[in-house]
């Protein structure tokens, strides 16, 4: 990636960064939620090897601190916990994925980065404020109390507006990270990606369900 492209992307990203005014300092004794992303960090290029197995941390370094990862893990698993069908989000690499996403050198991800980092700091500060403990150390009920204030954009109190935007973004990233894995695809009901010798169309019960048979 040449310098001009980098600057163009950064400009695009800057234009999309929402203003976040949490007005708090880090709950981790002044520690940032992530290491800096290099301004000239390259992406995977316009001709990446499509046949290799790509892993989070491969194309560019991950940047979340251990504390921030712990908070992210607790939040992922609050959004997508284990149930009868599938395990919790963090068990299939969703924390690594979110770290990969917010550490990526592209405009959309550079735009999401401050939303996620400030949001994780806010969650941590809010946990300390309400319960005197770090978010990962809270009980399920205590975490739910915070999440209940943030999960519904229509019902949330105005004072939580920025945190609600963060929660929605984090939920989208968690869902995207989870449901794209084989475990998540199976959970959501995707039954494709199977080589077939013929395609027989939908089963009768599916047509009946839609009022077509």
């Amino acid at each position, binding site marked *: *990636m*040449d310098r001009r*492209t980098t600057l163009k992307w950064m400009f695009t990203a800057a234009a999309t960064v929402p203003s976040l005014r949490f007005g708090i300092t880090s709950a981790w004794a002044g520690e940032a939620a992530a290491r800096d992303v290099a301004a000239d960090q390259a*992406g*995977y*290029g*316009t*001709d*990446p090897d*499509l*046949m290799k*197995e*790509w892993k989070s941390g*491969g194309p560019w370094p991950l940047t979340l601190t251990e504390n921030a990862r712990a908070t992210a893990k607790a939040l992922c698993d*609050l*959004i*997508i916990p284990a149930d009868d069908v599938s395990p919790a989000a963090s068990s*299939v690499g969703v924390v690594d*994925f979110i770290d*990969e*996403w917010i550490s990526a050198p*592209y405009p*959309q*991800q550079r735009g999401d980065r401050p939303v996620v980092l400030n949001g994780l700091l806010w969650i941590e500060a809010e946990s300390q404020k309400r319960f005197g403990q770090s978010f990962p150390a809270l009980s399920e009920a205590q975490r*739910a109390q915070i*999440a209940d204030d943030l999960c*519904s*954009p*229509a*019902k949330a109190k105005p004072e939580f507006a920025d945190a609600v935007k963060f929660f929605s973004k984090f*939920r*989208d990233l968690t869902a*995207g*990270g989870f*449901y*794209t894995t*084989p475990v*998540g*695809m199976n*959970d*959501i*009901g*995707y*039954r*494709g*990606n*199977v*080589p*077939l*010798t013929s*395609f*027989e*169309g*939908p*089963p009768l019960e*599916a*047509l009946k*369900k*839609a009022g*077509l048979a």
Partner: protein
Amino acid sequence: MSFIQSTQADKNTYDVIVVGSGAAGGQTAYTLAMEGARVLMLEAGRKYEPASETPMMQVNSQAPLRGAGTPEKPFGFWDATIDGGWDVPGEPYTSASEDPERQFRWWRARMLGGRTNHWGRISLRNGPYDFKPHTRDGLGFDWPMNYQDLAPYYDKVEMLIGVYGENDGLENTPNSPAGVLLPAPKPLVSDLLFKKHAAKVGVPTIAGHRAVLTTRLDHKRLPALLHPGNTKAQKILAADMQKRSACIFATPCGRGCSIRANYQSTTVHLPPALDTGNLDIVTDAMVRAVTKRADGKAEGVVYIDRKTGTEHRVRARIVVLAASALESVRILLNSGVANSSGKVGKYIMDTVGAGLSGQVPLLENMPLHNEDGVDGLHMYTPWWLYKEQLAGKLGFARGYHIEFGGGRDMPGMGIASGLEWLNGGTYGKKFKEDARRYYGSFFYMTGRGEMIPNEDCYAELDPTVKDKFGIPVLRFHWKWSQHELGQAAHMEKTFADILDVMGGRYARKPQAGNKAIKQGGVIIHEVGGAIMGTDPKKSVTNSFGQCWDMKNLFITDGATLCSNADKNPTLTIMALAWRSADHMLSLMKKKEL
């Protein structure tokens, strides 16, 4: 003959130089090489081998960012496009206006086979009206040919590449002769749901047409129909058809296909053409200009070897530009040839695009089943309001078709995103239940409509900007007319009506035309810029893509299209290219060239 280096190409002699290796270049080189002409193909991008480079069966969690699009891979990580997209590093283009509504976007690829490696494979024939639009409504330009002139070539292309579909005989939606089309795939639940409910508002639904092998090609019957009297070509083609597999109903076509079950130039045109021994290919060859002989005819082309930076000149009896419509325009403008009409760069068109999507409760909580199918357009809606339109009842002059779909596709990053408008916003076990409930219940409709050529849409050389090779770049001028804006508004209104009868919910209301319409170029159906015609003062080429001013210079890509019917242009480009190549062969045989 095969893949060769620039230094070797310099020494050889050829009958024809073909610039470009996509749908137009592939078809032109195929026809010429199969019929015995010695061809040199120049491709600006790198060599590409679908058999070893196509990510078959990979899932999104194996890709960076779960496969989401980025500026380096705008259609997602697995998309086949190499070194391309809306921006090609070091190879800019410019827009004359700062106003986004008057800007043009240009998708390019720099790879063997060009954009055929990733395209949607939708293969619709122009109908009889589409060749005589000016006669019909007084707008735009008539083609210097009619449907009957091109029909035999549509037949040939469909038989060669393999197109599924059915013959429904609807107005201006031609049938193919018996034995040409492959069986259409079975419809999905969402297709049948659309068909049932759209009929209530008078919108018809028929089988889609795409270049995907739902069954294997008949290698015993087809070669003799495609190359009558040419036993060598028949034998080569029969052997190659047997190497193409039928679709396995898995892996999106946009990734390309390692088993050659859909059409891309690299898997259908180039292998048999290379097997003839008549085709040489130089990749990484960026053509700058057509060179001219003392007698005014084309001598050859000058190109820059991307790997060494050195300039090379090659010569032939005929030069064919098939670099994609606008890249061919750029080469013509940089050559300063074939432009006594002043029409090079004029009348560029894209397809009108607008869409609406929603959520359909009838599709919630479906019994689990595999809906990958052939990856799109099992069914579609051809334009259906010809009579009302001709009677002036619609307020815009040309039609559109509808591409639609729902279905239980392989989950990508958007899956289960933004469900708040449906469920209020949940988390935990409830969120997982919601994700299952809503997955597969979303439905989209997108219109693809005809744009009428106008004086405000053209390309010229930018007076100052050059690419990294020092070649002047294109600067675009763009303005939709009221016909396109009216059509886009009609699309969204119609889609909302259909969604209503399906019992669907939409996240946003239909919009005014200038808000609904996609930016110029975004549908990636750009054509025109060197239009064909009957008058050398008003057009650049004749119906064979042969330049009026330079008889041995041909254009076989979309640049010659003088109208852009709603039917996606690639099939028509291939049919025109085959017809042009036949004409070149006949002129060479008669020693006229």
